[in-house]
């Protein structure tokens, strides 16, 4: 029984880490930059398709195609940021909602047109398939990989945004554009880079998620709800918050399904509603 509990905890944590990699980009664009970016999932989808093309048509191994997903999503997002999104930074969330929803529609149709409506499976390298046995308990190899990747991303981001010069600039620029500009910061460039970072992370998340949740043109809509939940529960502007929220949501969801399977579909939403009712700013939110 205790062994089972350990496995369930691990599975929950691993699922939480999947939620984290899917949503961490949004905690940058929505959380830090305050841009209601419902097209987050679309950039995730873009990353996913980038990996599919890289692996299937260009024979690039899985691990090398992951950074590619980050780059493709990041670069494409810069184009959109420079041409369209930046006009709406101060236009209010409703306009941002309409614009980004529109972009999701366009992205979904584009992918359906070029790649068809079917699932896009990828074949993982052998070392990421199957399980690792530890003290009689079995842990999925890909899940372990996900946990490691998520920890690395979280570590790099928290360090990068809170302990480096670049991080300080980003925080200054998003906190008060005018003052930051006055201090001689190139706010435009900082915003572009930060947005690219968020979208790149979305692309990476999408790429990592294919193995567990699959990939088709409805991806951008499908996981929007999950990523919004993680960011809201974690609290805007806190990468660490997103990490903790994702881990808790994952454990609560998997554990809940294990002990009360009939409640399976309700758990994640109940968890969110209760947390946000008690703490409207989220677990670690400041505003």
């Amino acid at each position, binding site marked *: 029984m205790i062994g089972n509990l350990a496995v369930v905890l691990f599975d929950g944590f691993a699922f939480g880490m999947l939620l984290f990699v899917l949503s961490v980009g949004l905690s940058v664009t929505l959380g830090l930059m305050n841009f209601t970016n419902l097209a987050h999932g679309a950039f995730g989808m873009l990353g996913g398709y980038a990996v599919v093309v890289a692996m299937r048509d260009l024979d690039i191994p899985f691990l090398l195609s992951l950074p590619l997903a980050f780059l493709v999503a990041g670069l494409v997002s810069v184009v959109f940021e420079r041409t369209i999104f930046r006009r709406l930074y101060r236009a209010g969330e409703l306009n941002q909602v309409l614009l980004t929803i529109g972009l999701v529609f366009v992205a979904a149709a584009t992918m359906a047109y070029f790649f068809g409506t079917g699932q896009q499976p990828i074949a993982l390298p052998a070392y990421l398939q199957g399980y690792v046995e530890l003290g009689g308990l079995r842990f999925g190899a890909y899940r372990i990989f996900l946990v490691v990747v998520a920890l690395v991303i979280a570590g790099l981001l928290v360090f990068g945004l809170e302990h480096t010069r670049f991080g300080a600039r980003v925080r200054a620029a998003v906190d008060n554009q005018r003052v930051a500009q006055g201090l001689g910061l190139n706010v435009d460039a900082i915003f572009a880079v930060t947005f690219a970072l968020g979208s790149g992370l979305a692309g990476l998340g999408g790429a990592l998620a294919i193995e567990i949740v699959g990939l088709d043109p*409805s991806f951008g*809509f499908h996981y929007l709800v999950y990523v919004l939940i993680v960011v809201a529960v974690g609290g805007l502007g806190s990468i660490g918050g997103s990490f903790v929220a994702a881990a808790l949501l994952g454990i609560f969801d998997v554990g809940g399904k294990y002990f009360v399977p009939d409640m399976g579909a309700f758990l994640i939403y109940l968890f969110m509603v209760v947390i946000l009712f008690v703490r409207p700013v989220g677990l670690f939110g400041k505003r």
Partner: protein
Amino acid sequence: MLKKTAAALALGFSLAAALSSTALAEGTVKIGLIMPYSGPFADAGAQMQAGIDLYVKEHGDEVAGKKIVLIKKDTGGPNPDVAKRLAQELVVRDHVDVLAGFALTPEALGAAPVATEAKKLMVDMNAATSIITEKSPYIVRTSVTIPQINYAFGKWAADQGIKHAYTLVADYGPGHDAESSFAKGFKEKGGEIVGADHSPVANPDFSAYVQRIKDAKPEAVYIFIPGGSQPAAIGKALADKGLTPPNTKLLGQGELTMPDAMESLGKNADGIITAFHYTLERKDPLNQKFVAGYKNLTKGREPDLFSIGGYDGMHLIYAALKKTKGDASGDALIKVAKGMSWESPRGPITIDPETRDIVQNVYIRKVEKVDGKLQNVIIDTIKDVKDPLHGAK
């Protein structure tokens, strides 16, 4: 306002009467296709359309001196209100002779009253809930029903000596149907269901449910999951926990080992036993020609249950029109459709004259390596299976 309504009503009825008499005179037969061309079920729509297109490509667009015209309408998903509106528009605006398509049960249920009222043949090319054909005397089905496969499958499994099974189904109508019909067949032959769980329809992670199954240590696991990303997800979760054949027998409806799921599952798919009405790999000249033609049309995509439903649905319409010598009225078409039987790429099929539902073989397949590639290999055939629910009450 109400006076205006009444006036408009009167105008409408006279218009309707005038238009319905003109529709017959033309030299075309219009088929209105109602299905999800967009949205989360777009792939079902795309595959069904390809099946339809292949049939028209192979057999020409002229039958009994009439030209076949297809009119496509997108429901966007399981929306009966949209499906009903589209059916109405197809009847009153486009003057279609046949309503067809219907990938999802709510679409078919929404359109059924329109078929009855307008007296149009309605061909259900996929939606798989038993009751659909009972909703209108003009409905005929060319796909499959879930109880048809799974009741037979349950009996078969028990006959093979499997005694204890755990069932895991998606928590929605089709899942519940699959669970109850499998369990019924299984128990009738002396099997025992040791546990039953329902997973949310759009469940991204199956580890919790698979762990519960593992705890119960069943001899076999029965799974019903909608197609798309889930078959691969659940297959991998099972493999992660070591629940793989031959130690644990894995049973499921055919979606579990569709080509894309199999590609994603890799060697973890080996040994899974599924029951289905259509098997891509079935060695049969008609099927091989169908698969080759389909891949040629879709640039490499393989046909699935939606494709075969659309293909056979078109065959039914063509064959019926030939018999009526081009009379496309609903009454004439449904009359000749009853009892029709033909050789389909999936095998021999018959339209039951009593229920207007399909009677067909259920194939039991096992994933095995053939020439280095994993395939669904037919290991048993249950002949001429009817839906067990019609008239059961």
